[in-house]
């Protein structure tokens, strides 16, 4: 499944995750093995409760697995200490969440360069040029001195994307990034993510419910009951919907 042109940027092997103890354990993930390819826009789909968010949290080093191993690039993150995981997130991972992405006390410019500041440095000239390009292409130039609450949901989401792309991380994780947006704004955000992958080779893993959102991706992974059940290349929204319906019927 790995081609030389697209080596994997992150992978999990025999990943299991159970919540709770004793009689009422919930198995969120059950022996999942998969790889996210470098430079691709990958969508992770599945019904509610199928383990999508849990998978993303573990791959991003936000949560620890019950069993199995997780790599980001060549680093096995399963055994890293909390501090090493934090540094890894800071330098090699970007995030776009469904809501509450931005630090309310910082202005837009401050939010975008936050990953650099956390590292105690300023963006280099080269990085600054990249950030300026992002700000312009996301239409945020006029908003740099505003606070997050002065922006619409779609604008806030674009700021989150700028922040996630700014340090050029190995992998950007997005959990339902369009979940709180209307369909037109949502499509704009998706187009931005797709451009980042195709134009700049940014690897992106996006969790979504929405077949239209998934149709922007290069590859779609389906989870059901904590297992990987399907792995397909770029598909139309109709194809994705009908597959999901078939999956539901089978269940």
């Amino acid at each position, binding site marked *: 499944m790995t081609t030389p042109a697209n080596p994997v940027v992150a992978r999990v092997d025999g990943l299991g995750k159970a919540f709770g103890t004793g009689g009422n354990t919930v198995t969120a993930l059950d022996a999942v093995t998969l790889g996210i390819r470098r430079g691709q826009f990958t969508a992770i789909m599945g019904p509610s409760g199928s383990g999508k*968010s849990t998978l993303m*949290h573990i791959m*991003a080093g*936000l*949560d620890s697995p019950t069993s199995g191993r997780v790599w980001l690039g060549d680093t096995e993150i399963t055994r890293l200490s*909390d*501090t090493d995981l*934090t*540094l890894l*997130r*800071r*330098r090699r991972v970007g*995030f776009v*969440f*469904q*809501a*509450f*992405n*931005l*630090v*309310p*006390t*910082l202005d837009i410019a*401050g939010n975008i360069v*936050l*990953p650099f*500041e*956390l*590292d*105690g440095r300023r963006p280099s000239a080269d990085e600054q040029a990249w950030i300026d390009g992002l700000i312009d292409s996301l239409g945020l130039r006029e908003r740099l001195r505003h*606070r*997050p*609450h002065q922006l619409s949901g779609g604008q*806030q989401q674009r700021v989150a994307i700028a922040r996630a792309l700014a340090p050029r991380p190995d992998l950007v994780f997005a*959990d*339902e990034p369009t*979940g*709180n947006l209307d369909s037109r704004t949502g499509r704009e955000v998706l187009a931005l993510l797709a451009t980042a992958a195709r134009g700049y080779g940014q690897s992106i893993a996006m969790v979504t419910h929405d077949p239209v959102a998934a149709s922007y991706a290069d590859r779609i992974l389906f989870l059901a009951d904590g297992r990987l059940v399907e792995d397909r290349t770029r598909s139309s929204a109709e194809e994705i919907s009908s597959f999901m319906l078939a999956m539901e019927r089978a269940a």
Partner: protein
Amino acid sequence: MSRLSVRDHLPSVLVATISSAFGVALLGVTGVIGTAAEEDDATGSSGTVGLMLQIVAAVFIVIAMYVAAIVTANTFATIIAGRTRTIALLRLLGSSASAQRRAVAREGLLVGLAGAALGLLLGAGATFLLTRIGIALGALPDLAYPLVDASAGLPVAAVVLTTWLASWVGSRRVLTVTPLQALGSAQERSAADAARPARTVTGLVLVIVGLALVGFGVLVGLVTPFGVFLGLIGGVLSFTGLVAGSTWLMPPALRLVGRLFGQGAAARLAAENALRYPERSSRTAIGLVIGITLITMFGVGIATFERIMREAMAAEPRLYEGTQQMLTATVVVLSVLLGFSALIAAIGMVNNLSLSVLQRTRELGLLRALGFTGAQIRRMILVESAQLTLAALLVGVALGAFYGWAGAQSLFGAFDGSPGVVLPGVPWTLLGVLAIASGALTWIASLAPSRRATRVSPVAALAVD
């Protein structure tokens, strides 16, 4: 809202308990001293001594209660901010804003009653203990002193009333909660704390008139020591003005101090957090400022007096024997009495920092997800805490030094018969104690919030509630 959340109110109960206990004990002890003085009344002036003592005690009790009221109002405002979502939901379901506010005030009344009753017990106990110790040391005659004076009812009632009132004032924000806030996944707004021009103007007028009187007192003091009375009135007026206008006095001080901690991510966020709710931070800091100003003022005043005495003593040593010990004792007693107000303010500051961290769980999770290490989170909270105490310390010491000098100048300006400038004495020991206490407060206040904040899992930020 009807459910009384006891944990929310523990700090307020503690504040009410301390101020009630302080009032009861102070009146009790002065009562005992008055009775003892009456017993060996040689001069026939014991009635006056007792009355004087009670007036002095009343001043300190009023200061402590004033600080307690500020702290309680602030605590209630912070609690309300944390409950905004719940209040909005109840509003959405048809509850009226005033009914909501009355419910909060009822909680305030209960807090006041509980604290006042506990304080009465503790205060009476402390009076009894102190009296026994006094008798054992031979400082007091062995008489049957009353355990509690009828006058103890005053501070107890005052605590109930001020706590109730403070909860009413602090719950003003309930009125601004709209039902819509229950629906919005809207990000927290940096609450544009309602500007209250009327209060600002009143504060400004008080400051100007007060400072003019202080200046006039200094001038009059060049001729007669009675200048100090003008100065006293001016001091009370101008300081009241500054406290009323704390929302324009403290934010610049906080901002200035915030810059001292550098430009790192943790320090910058801390600086922003300290000013996130300017009104809240100002009130948190102003409680400390009141305590520090008064302690510094007496310290500087008495240090100045000491120096003048020393100079006079060099000329006539016999005349001033024993003054040194008396002055030191006065500084210690005044500092302890004012220390209670400072303690109440410190509780307010610890509680405010804890609550504000508690209300930021989501944001802390986000920062952790983005790569803030536990150590950076801890540093951020420590800097936030340091910013509040340091700003209060700087403002308090500056104000205290000014008032202390002005007092000394208007009292001793004509000391050696001719008008002269009195240089302020510097109470080094006292300033050292204040600095150490502020450092300790900074550290203590950050302990619990840091522990809680570093335990926040980054997953909390991703969850949509």
